[in-house]
């Protein structure tokens, strides 16, 4: 009886979270945008780090990339970002109008390259990423308000004047997520975005992502080590080891022989 009401309460919380995330955009995911990556390869000299990677992702889907350490997951993310030179093509197609569009990417990093006591506030980082109003000189009211409203979508509006180093893991994650979603991206890249966050924070995070991609016109690629959460939230899974070994629904991939070879 007790367990049941707990479950119900949790379900209600999740629903509320999803709805909040849904307010980000009026449009629902239409499934008519797709991102097609063909024969992606990244080489260190002549040694391939990843090669012959083909991915096809529709909007509204969460694709998880899993694999052992050094399988090339982060390299794939960097190639998609255009940070590492790669072979092959990445196309973003609008199937409604049947034309190519420029892909707008939102990225949530693994960690930030700042000291714990660095004098950087949430506003400073956010404004630096989305505007050219120099943060060392001005704090523009309009920009401040805009950032507050974007942070509010992830329940982070109260953090705007805090130092980045004073945030908890979960708070930092919500801030980074709202930066990644401003402006609304077509593709959200999450590179193991859950280090230093407790179990509850992790679940909340996944719920938010889930809500985002349900209501939004966006696809999500997530690099993760947490197979249990991947199983619960991913629409499809890619098992990567230099190239795509196996892909499909979480269940199919996790029952495959390749999966058992790598994860035992």
């Amino acid at each position, binding site marked *: 009886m007790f367990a049941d009401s707990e479950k119900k309460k949790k379900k209600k919380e999740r629903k509320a979270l999803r709805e909040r995330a849904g307010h980000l955009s009026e449009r629902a995911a239409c499934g008519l945008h797709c991102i097609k990556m063909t024969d992606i390869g990244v080489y260190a000299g002549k040694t391939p780090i990843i090669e012959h990677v083909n991915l096809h992702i529709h909007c509204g889907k969460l694709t998880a990339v899993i694999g052992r350490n050094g399988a090339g997951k982060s390299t794939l*993310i*960097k190639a998609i*970002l*255009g*940070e590492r030179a790669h072979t092959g093509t990445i196309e973003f197609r609008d199937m409604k109008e049947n034309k190519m569009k420029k892909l707008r*990417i*939102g*990225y949530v*990093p693994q*960690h*930030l*390259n*700042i000291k714990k*006591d*660095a*004098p*950087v*506030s949430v*506003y*400073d*980082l956010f*404004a*630096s*990423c*989305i*505007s*050219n*109003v*120099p*943060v*060392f*000189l*001005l*704090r523009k009211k309009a920009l401040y308000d805009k950032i507050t409203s974007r942070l509010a979508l992830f329940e982070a509006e109260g953090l705007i*004047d805090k*130092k980045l180093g*004073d945030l908890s893991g979960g708070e930092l994650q919500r801030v*980074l997520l709202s*930066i*990644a979603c401003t402006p609304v991206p077509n593709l959200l*890249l999450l*590179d193991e975005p859950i280090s230093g966050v407790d179990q509850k924070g992790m679940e909340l995070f996944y719920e938010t992502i889930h809500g985002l991609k349900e209501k939004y016109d966006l696809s999500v690629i997530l690099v993760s080590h947490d197979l249990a959460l991947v199983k619960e939230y991913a629409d499809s899974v890619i098992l990567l080891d230099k190239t795509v070994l196996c892909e499909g629904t979480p269940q199919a991939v996790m029952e495959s022989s390749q999966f058992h070879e790598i994860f035992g």
Partner: protein
Amino acid sequence: MEFLNYGFMKNALLAVLIITPLFGILGTMIVNNRMAFFSDALGHSALTGMAIGVLLGFSGTGVPMLLFALAFALLLTYMKRKSTASTDTLISVFSSLGTAIGLVVLSRGGNFSKYSALLVGDILSITAKEILYLLGALVLTLVFWLVFFNRLHAVSVNQSLAKSKGISVRLIEDLFAMLIAVIVMLSIRWVGILIINALLILPAAASANISSNMREYHLFSVILSVASGVLGLVLSYYLNAAAGPTIVIVSAVFFLVTLLAKPFFAE
């Protein structure tokens, strides 16, 4: 204020009033970007730049020093990107090499003493024209800051994040490295190779102790930098000591004070 009766002291004070805010601003991102080693190496490379100028028979050594520093800065940035070796080690190697080559060339024939002013600097010898160059450097830095600061800041926090926002990471890194090279070369003769890095780093590091956002960080850094510059210059006059090192000592005292005050500024 009797020291202002001397023309050289007036010039020196003017130069300090330009260099210190400039260093206060530039230092903030050198500290945040953890580029202290880099700016130090650039300072040392001034010796090689000067040596090249001497070898090529330039009358003034400013231009070859500047060109060499720019090439050196871009080379270091390139190596940092390409190499998997630790950046600190790499920069140390280049810094030592830059110093050694310069010393070998300049000390041939046993008259290095001619160049020793480069080591500790001599702000009292600055002329009106050279003060104008410094003013140019200050304007250049301010313009760079107004136009590129946000992008530079985003890059320093996380390169991939900056890239995802359409910022061209390499260009920004290269431009910033070149800016540091220009500023270091334009001021090295007045400040000195041994001291320049302390003046770049200390005010910003002190400011970081008591700031909680970018505006405070810049404001305090500039204030502390100018205060140590003026106070140090005046002290050096009455102590009859070299100006640069006196300024460094004052800066260091400010740093220690802010370090002690730090707990009171945390929430």
